[in-house]
């Protein structure tokens, strides 16, 4: 008949450097701890994660020599697992996880509108180049273009602010765009993000 070594002896041996003792302890309590975690989270993958985190804590505590509950190894492990289960639910409450399935993919409904790093760099470069090009325009055209494009003012507001008629403001905007295109063509400048 096989005699079972007590948990407290295995813990003591493990602390003394016998790694085999840990293997016996994990295998001995694997089923009870895993079943306990699974009964709470009802997810196989999360159960594995919590089981792993539980024993990582066990290993760290034992190696640091902070363990002081000799003879109560399993209840101590269960308490660590219990605390990690609570942490898991707290974290999930703050950040609920949504899993799609074959019929419905969440990314078909929502998307990330942000540009990736490369496109953002190109966009910044274009914005910077365009500012330099605008500086090349005559002052009256530059003024109208800046008010219209960057300050989002209407031509009525522009005419009131510059003291010219709406038609003149429209004409200056038109010439500003024509001149910008000419500068771009003349210098073979490429302003595109795609």
């Amino acid at each position, binding site marked *: 008949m096989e005699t079972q070594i007590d948990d407290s002896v295995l813990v003591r041996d493990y602390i003394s450097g016998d*790694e085999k003792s*840990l*293997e016996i302890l*994990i*295998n001995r309590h*694997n*089923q009870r*701890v*895993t*079943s306990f975690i*699974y*009964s709470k989270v*009802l997810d*196989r993958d999360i*159960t*594995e994660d919590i*089981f*792993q985190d539980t*024993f*990582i804590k066990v*290993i*760290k505590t034992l*190696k*640091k*020599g902070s363990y002081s509950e000799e003879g109560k190894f399993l209840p101590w492990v269960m308490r660590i697992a219990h605390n990690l289960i609570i942490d898991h639910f707290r974290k999930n409450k703050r950040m609920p996880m949504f899993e799609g399935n074959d019929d419905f993919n969440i990314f078909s409904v929502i998307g990330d509108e942000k540009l990736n790093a490369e496109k953002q760099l190109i966009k910044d470069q274009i914005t910077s180049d365009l500012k330099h090009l605008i500086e090349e325009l005559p002052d009256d055209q530059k003024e109208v273009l800046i008010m219209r494009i960057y300050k989002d003012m209407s031509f009525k507001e522009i005419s009131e602010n510059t003291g010219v008629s709406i038609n003149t403001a429209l004409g200056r905007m038109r010439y500003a765009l024509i001149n910008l295109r000419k500068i771009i063509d003349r210098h073979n400048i490429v302003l595109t993000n795609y």
Partner: protein
Amino acid sequence: MEKVYSKHQKDYRVVKACAETVQFLLAYSRSLHVVRYKDLTFESILN
């Protein structure tokens, strides 16, 4: 009488962590070294 039972009763089942997880923990344990210096404790993972 049936109301006294948890609604998750049917989900209770015996499961075990997979062998890979156990092997990871054993490897982690072998690689983890704790060094104490005065009141300080240092953890190092040596593969």
